[in-house]
């Protein structure tokens, strides 16, 4: 597939812009519309654009790990976010814990997990199609 010079040159910047935007949306989801799911989709969009411009092989190199591995790590994050409640505080699974009165808690880890699962699964579906 022949890609245009402009697309090829902009791929890297679009990728990082998308990832930054997706992280912003991920953190914004803490109190306002946004969150891990939509953030993960936006991030995946950046990687798909990168793959369109430079080929799936180059995108896999940027990702370093297999997409499904990222999804697995995300799932582990989600589980980890639910465990402190049961292990330390005697509350049911997934009861979210907060650092005192600061608005940071296990929910952030949980949302990050959702982000990685969505990103990983989306890319695990899309990249093989581009290689075929």
């Amino acid at each position, binding site marked *: 597939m022949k890609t245009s010079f402009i697309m090829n040159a902009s791929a890297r910047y679009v990728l990082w812009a998308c990832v930054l935007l997706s992280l912003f949306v991920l953190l914004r989801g803490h109190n306002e519309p946004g969150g891990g799911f939509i953030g993960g989709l936006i991030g995946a969009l950046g990687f798909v654009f990168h793959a369109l411009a430079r080929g799936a092989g180059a995108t896999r190199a940027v990702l370093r790990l*297999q997409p*499904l*591995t990222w*999804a*697995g*790590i*995300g*799932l*582990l994050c989600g*589980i980890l976010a639910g465990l402190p*409640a*049961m*292990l330390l*505080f*005697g*509350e*049911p*699974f*997934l*009861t*979210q814990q907060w650092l005192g009165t600061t608005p940071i808690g296990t929910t952030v880890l949980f949302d990050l997990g959702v982000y990685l699962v969505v990103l990983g699964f989306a890319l695990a579906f899309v990249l093989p199609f581009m290689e075929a």
Partner: protein
Amino acid sequence: MATRADWLLALPLLLPLLACAATAALQSHRDLQRGITAITAVGLLLASAALVAEVISQGVIASQMGDWPAPFGITLVADLFAASMVAITALMYAATALYARGDADVLDNEALWHPLLAALALGVGGAFLAGDLFNLYVWFEVMLIASFGLIVLGGGREQLDGAVKYAMLNLLATTVFLISVGMMFGLTGTLNLADMARRIPEIENQGAVAAVAFLMLAAFGAKAAVFPLFFWLPASYHTAIAPVAAIFAALLTKVGVYALIRIVTLLLPEGHAWVAPLMWFLAAGTMVVGVLGAAAHWEIRRILSFHIISQIGYMIVGIAIATPLALAGAVLYMLHHIVVKANLFLVAGVIRRAGGTFSLATLGGLWRRDPWLGLLFAIPALSLAGIPPLSGFWAKLFVLKSGFDAGWYVLAGIALATGILTLYSMLKIWMEAFWKEVPEGTPELPPITGATRWLLLAPVAGLGLVTITIGLWTEPFAAFALAAGEQLASREAYITAVMGVIRP
């Protein structure tokens, strides 16, 4: 510390969830994946045994995820029925995982097999423990996604053909289910099953309740492969590789039956006179169609697939009569059937390894070549047909006794006839594959030897031992099933356990 109930209800889901995540993350490390699956299998067996013990001693237990009280949060709840299903799921996970270590089809696809198997166990376990309708739907989806992945393992044209039929019809059923969940929410204003059970009698328009419940029963009926919505099952199950077919045959339709029992006992206990005749019709149709379909086929996996359907009919008999004894029969039947059916599909996989094919016409002479395999086939086959002293006899006895007690003679008669025809199908496999001489022109395959033989036959023998144990040492299992049936028929304990748990 978190209460014991919180732990016991979370662990059967946490363990496969962790296994799924870890084996997906470590997909290029085969040995680590195998180790994780082995540890998970042992852990899941122990955790589910502890759950069963807790439910026996404490009655129905519930846990509110994230500490959001019912009916707003996600509730996990286990009564005797659900706990026993979780335990048998753990057993299936362990048996198929062990068998898969010796199965060549799985060894080619191991990177995906481990996370998908864990995800399937997660979805099935979640469906059994879910305390609200929407989460039941979500767990059905988890199960469905995992099963799509599993059914195409092996990757041939045949698998893809089966997978497309399986996916389309199951997606349709799930969509109908989701629509009915939305409508039920509109009627009752809640998704929590226990809360719904309290509110339904207060609804003025019982006709609307009946319509939505009917829709729901249709969706679960399709999942359970009940007549006349069974056609997806024989169109797809025979294409899956042996351990996948075994765990599908054992668990997937049974989750549909589980949901049917839950809905009928919890949401439609009285005042809906249409349920019993409908179930009568479904049970009779399912038994007859399944057993006749099996009699007409000459391919082992197709015969076994049709027998799943006919056996589902027996469980529906239990739902139709709905006395505590009949429900106990349905529970015992499900436990027996899960073990025996998985066992038969695993044996079929070994037969194919030993004889090179699933087709009865070209098989033969296996008894002379491998009498152990013949014995290991005979145990679940006779149990399926209901020959004493195996587990199938007691399960059938419970169902038939409740049928005669309730005066449903015709249905009980159909069930008896189905049992005889089941025996015919099993004898057919026996005569053709094991007893007759090797047909002309069938190439002689080398016997299965060494570690592979042990890996393939150990789970088969283990499951055979379970059906013998239930058959010979029936007392505790029968008592358990009767207690589970009482619990299902009374439903008070379930509602108090879910709605009563409010933390200080």
